[in-house]
């Protein structure tokens, strides 16, 4: 599995995401936001958490218009895989690769804690290592994780099985408790919780490991 992790000014989970992918067996290249091309022969692009461009204007808005994101959009349009975590999820919605938007948390506070997630769809390359309905513990760390979609779009996401994870106890006001959304072709996942921060015994939990292993299984045989 060949992976790239994009680094923006203000990214702070880029190395954690790279380590989690490497431990699953990926060959990882870091890519700077000013680069215009992703490496050749890439299987998956990681869009990491952090505070790209200081969250100026809106979280992810400026990053979404950086040179590398044109390549990222082209990569996903070709059917390439991508995983956006936290700020990476915000960037994926700002580029339009994934639907919806992330608003300020309903309680207006930055929240940093481990939360329960329910696996809503285990038939994706990201979630095949989990069971439907399984509850897992993954940390969140965000101020703007309050997911919004219109009622019409929500109905569509439900019909298409595109809600990957929900919160067991909604921490931020997200519509329908949504914590993670997947693309129609099941190859792009965006989520506010951080699976790469639950990938080592030292993290205090390893429920994120199955995601990286699932990806490896999928992409090693692709």
């Amino acid at each position, binding site marked *: 599995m060949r992976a790239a992790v994009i680094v923006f000014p203000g990214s702070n989970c880029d190395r954690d995401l790279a380590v989690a992918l490497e431990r699953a067996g990926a060959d990882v290249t870091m890519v700077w936001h000013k680069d215009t091309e992703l490496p050749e022969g890439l299987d998956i692009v990681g869009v990491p958490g952090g505070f790209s461009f200081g969250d100026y*204007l809106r979280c992810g808005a400026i990053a979404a218009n950086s040179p590398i994101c044109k390549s990222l959009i082209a990569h996903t349009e070709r059917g390439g895989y991508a995983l956006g975590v936290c700020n990476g999820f915000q960037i994926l919605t700002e580029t339009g690769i994934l639907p919806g938007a992330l608003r300020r948390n309903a309680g207006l506070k930055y929240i940093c804690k481990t939360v329960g997630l329910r696996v809503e769809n285990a038939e994706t390359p990201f979630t095949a290592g989990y069971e439907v309905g399984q509850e897992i513990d993954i940390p969140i760390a965000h101020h703007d994780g309050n997911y*919004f979609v219109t009622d019409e779009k929500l109905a569509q996401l439900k019909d298409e099985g595109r809600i990957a994870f929900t919160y067991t106890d909604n921490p931020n006001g997200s519509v329908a408790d949504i914590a993670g959304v997947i693309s129609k072709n099941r190859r792009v996942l965006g989520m506010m919780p951080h699976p790469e921060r639950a990938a080592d015994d030292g993290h205090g939990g390893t429920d994120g490991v199955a995601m990286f292993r699932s990806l490896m299984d999928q992409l090693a045989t692709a």
Partner: protein
Amino acid sequence: MKARVYVMLKNGVLDPQGEAVRHALGSLGFDGVEGVRQGKVIELDLAEGTTEATVTEMCEKLLANTVIESYKIELG
């Protein structure tokens, strides 16, 4: 020339910051504040002759996220 862009959350999108301001005004004794919506104002210094269509394009591409936000442009 100058342009001023007002960006607001769309009606129907809950504005938790506006709600917090409404509560704070109530606790200061200002009765009768029935709703507060908080947005942002972006001032642009533009080359003479820049058209409203160009500013609209700026709003659509970057200044507003039209999934949740609406915008209004004032030129001059």
